[in-house]
């Protein structure tokens, strides 16, 4: 049984901790003191009462939709661009991929400096060109904060998704394209009729990772915007973090995590069903 090592590993390091999360979510569990006994369903009932909850849900969804679309379209374009055999393709591929090798925290710190009024390079350039004389408030308004975060995330992850799609593209046999060309299909036609359907598993992987990752967005906002200005970029996971480590209420944090996990499971099972249809035949 080749899956056994992974199975045991996941059971021990994931299922067991997850059970504890479940127990926490049903208990009064201050971080500093440990369990105080079952209080079901208080932790769950309290979620929707939090003044931060619905705005956080709304923002997280909005962010996810924008990021996933921008990221995947861009990554697909990049993958098509760099899978061609041309001179200089290696350079492009390297350039696109380099940001991926930074950690998300490192990348957030980089952009935090990049956007900062103290050392950021863009304001001086714009001022020098005479375009503005006021510093741009990169993270000062809700819309700019969202925009700046998206730039960061796209910059950091586009290369990653490009690579997954590229691996997928390379696994499509050339003969298929040749057959299509013989049948007189144009490039665009063969992209939509051949490439996209055959890329399903890779696209599924991209979607699962990008949707799940965006819905759980934390580091970039924690470092770059701190959830601000005025809570406009507070995500659901920032709320979980606040419950656990600012309010020291592990019970509420766990309850919120369980809800998030269930929602993500439903979304992903649906995606999975849809996108792997045909792959298992």
């Amino acid at each position, binding site marked *: 049984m080749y899956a056994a090592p992974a199975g045991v590993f996941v059971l021990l390091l994931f299922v067991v901790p997850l059970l504890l999360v479940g127990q926490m979510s049903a208990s009064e569990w201050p971080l500093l003191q*440990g369990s105080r006994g079952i209080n079901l369903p208080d932790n769950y009932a309290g979620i929707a009462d939090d003044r931060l909850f619905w705005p956080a849900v709304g923002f997280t969804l909005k962010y996810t939709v924008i990021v996933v679309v921008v990221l995947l379209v861009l990554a697909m374009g990049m993958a098509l661009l760099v899978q061609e055999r041309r001179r200089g393709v290696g350079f492009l591929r390297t350039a696109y991929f380099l940001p991926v090798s930074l950690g998300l925290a490192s990348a957030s710190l980089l952009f935090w400096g990049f956007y900062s009024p103290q050392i950021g390079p863009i304001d001086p350039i714009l001022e020098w060109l005479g375009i503005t004389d006021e510093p741009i408030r990169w993270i000062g308004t809700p819309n700019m904060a969202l925009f700046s975060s998206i730039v960061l995330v796209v910059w950091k992850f586009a290369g990653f998704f490009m690579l997954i799609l590229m691996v997928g593209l390379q696994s499509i046999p050339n003969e298929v394209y040749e057959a299509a060309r013989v049948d007189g299909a144009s490039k665009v036609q063969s992209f939509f009729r051949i490439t996209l359907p055959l890329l399903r598993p890779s696209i599924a992987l991209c979607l699962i990772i990008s949707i799940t990752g965006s819905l759980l967005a934390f580091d970039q906002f924690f470092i770059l915007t701190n959830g601000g200005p005025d809570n406009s970029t507070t995500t659901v996971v920032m709320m979980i973090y606040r419950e656990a480590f600012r309010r020291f209420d592990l019970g509420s944090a766990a309850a919120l995590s369980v809800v998030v996990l269930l929602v993500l499971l439903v979304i992903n099972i649906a995606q999975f069903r849809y996108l792997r249809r045909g792959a298992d035949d």
Partner: protein
Amino acid sequence: MRRSTRTRATTAVTAAVLALVMSACGGDDDTGTTGGDGDTSASLAEGVDDGSTITMWTRAATEAQSQRLVDAYNASHENQVELTVIPTDDYLPRVGTAAGAGELPDVLSLDVVFVPQFTTAGAYLDITERIDALPFADDLAQSHIEVGTLDGAKHVVPHTMDLSVLFYNKNLYEQAGLDPEAPPTTLQEFAEHARAVDALGGDVSGTFFGGNCGGCYVFTWWPSIWAAGADVMNEDGTESFLAEPEAQAVYDVWKGLVEDDIVAPGTQDEAGPTWTGVFPEGNIGVMPMPSTTLGLMPDTFETGVAPIPGVDGGESTFVGGDAIGISSNSEIPDAAWNFIAWTLGDEAQVEVVAQNRDVVARTDLASNEYSDQDPRLVTINEVAGVGRTPYSMRFGETFNDPQGPWLPLVRNYVFGDGSTLEQDNEAVDASLQS
């Protein structure tokens, strides 16, 4: 074969789950009480130096101060302190988790505003008798100790003192025609000075503050409220007075500076990480700063220091920094106390703390051979006596946390029209009482 493996795995997992649940529940048992039985008052005051290894955690923000004390102690004692430094932003998650599982180090240093939560949770040993046995017990700066007192039992002593004081740029004062030896004595005067410096134009701005940083407002603005004799919260820290007229008067002065653009660019968006990095650039006239940064000021201009005044006079300061105590998980409280008591002694306070221009934790040492060389240090040490450390069980999540309700209150007032003050204050009350 396959079945037996699976059974064994199931058993192991079940055991692990049980162990988890039990250990996670074991965090709140009370280990240790005050002192040891039959200790003489001398060993109560000094603890023991028997070659123990003492573990200690501190946040990166106060690493330099802690490391100096630890090095000096290790060099002269049998006991050895092992210091672990943890990134500042991640200190609470780390320490909170360890506290919940009963795995704190022997000595725990903590940002003083979080101390009430940890004492209430039983993370610190009651050290009332040990503190009282110190020969200089009455001279210790009281604000940290008071915040760590629960039902009359003391749990912590001051470790690193960080006070808010006004820093002003004497060179810019001169250029603006102000007397560099006459810092502001009222908040109104502070605003006038800032306006005068701002009029110099160019890259120069009158003042600066962390406009998107709850902890910065608390640290730099509250002293002006205290200076007027008012309070920010009730004694229990469950009711906010931050919409009272005295508080509004303070906001109004600052709001005037914002409206007239006397503040440096980026003020409104400064979330905290760099708020102390702007003054050293040399383009800010006068602003409240943490006293611990005095040693970091560049020599390209002369920095003056003054207490933070109230709107019409008076002075006060926020006594922040780290408090320190013996964790309830320590198995060697006497050795741990030996280190803590030593850090408060004359030698450590003068030769380590004062020598590095830090604020001493004892009022009787406010004037010492090092502060005598730099009158600014005397100013800082003296204002410590009138300063305060606010107490609330919900302090961090209400005031420091960017998602807390205090930040919207003050931002709506200063950068908005202030019409939501009452409503915002209710949210603060709700958070304090939750």
